């Protein structure tokens, strides 16, 4: 039985080295100086509300145009208010802007 415990520890250790923050960087990492509270709220909703149903995908996986298509449907599906939707939208735009390598 110890083999599977070793395997479990190994897999969780390796996966622990993967940087989850690349999926949804913190507002501090974005280097923005304005609307910090709004962006933090947007990140909180992205990380905690969206993951009720599915994985939080890396934001830079999609272009702004693709997010413009995805986000309205997801806001509707998850029952977010328009204010919450605006917060998430602002956070996603800030992440895409700050991404030095650009989308994808």
């Amino acid at each position, binding site marked *: 039985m110890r083999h*599977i*415990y070793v395997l479990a520890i190994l897999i969780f250790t390796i996966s622990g080295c993967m940087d989850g923050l690349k999926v949804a960087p913190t507002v501090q990492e974005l280097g923005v100086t304005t609307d910090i509270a709004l962006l933090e709220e947007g990140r909180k909703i992205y990380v905690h509300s969206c993951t009720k*149903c599915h994985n939080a995908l890396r934001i830079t996986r999609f272009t702004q145009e693709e997010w413009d298509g995805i986000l309205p449907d997801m806001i509707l599906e998850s029952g977010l208010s328009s204010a919450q939707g605006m917060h998430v939208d602002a956070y996603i735009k800030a992440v895409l802007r700050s991404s030095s390598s650009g989308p994808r």
Partner: protein
Amino acid sequence: MIPPTILANENQSQLNIPFQRNLSMFRIITFSLLCVALFSSTKVEASSRKIPWLYEPRTMPAGHVEYEQWVTLKTNKESDSKYTEVRFRHEIEWGVTDRFQMAVYVADWRYKKTSSGERTSFRDVALEGIYQLQAPNPDQLGVALYGEIKYGSEFLELEAKILLEAEFDQVNVIYNFTLEAEWEGQDLQEDKGKIINSIALTYQPKPSFTLGLQAILETPIPDWEDFGDEVLSIGPSVSWQSGSWWCCVSPIFQVTNVDSAPDLQVRFLFGIDF
């Protein structure tokens, strides 16, 4: 005087009648539930299972109801060359709150063929609850507690699990620790236990499509005294989701050498939101 062979055949056919009735009834129930599910489906998103042999700590949103059909094939036992077993489960899941999910196994039944004969039999009904302590997301490990009670004719089983999940963009690592306690026979005098450690790695190239690899280690505890022979099975899985329905399938192969355990098991799950 009736020849003994005819008498034996008559007895055999009489014995099969209840099983055939059960089979027909289950087919009707399954078909009816699927029809209701298909025609009343309005949700765009299903609460899909990505891997058939493990549970994930992500629970259904409050108010969602889902029908799940399970089919599990077990075959290739070294100790019995004719062994084949197909298990069926009809399950209804309900998101009570965003963190608590309940399920009813309307019926667990099985077809079993061994060297001593074949039979189709009802096994049990069951009640299951999953309470999510925290959802998996990039900031935290997903953790949930699972409890289940199964009851059948001369059969009772309690099952508890700890469900863990770490998610990294398109990759998820899932671990389940399971402890089973089972009582069987007249007055439920025969008792035994089992510990199951399961781990899976999944990769989601598209939101609707998931590939996985899983390892399941079963450790029986006969009479709650000594540990029995451990059985380790490993296999891939694939899951597909479209609109309100999803399905996943996974064959697992025994990599240990326990003659009394099946070398091949295949599980297929189909679910639909309604």
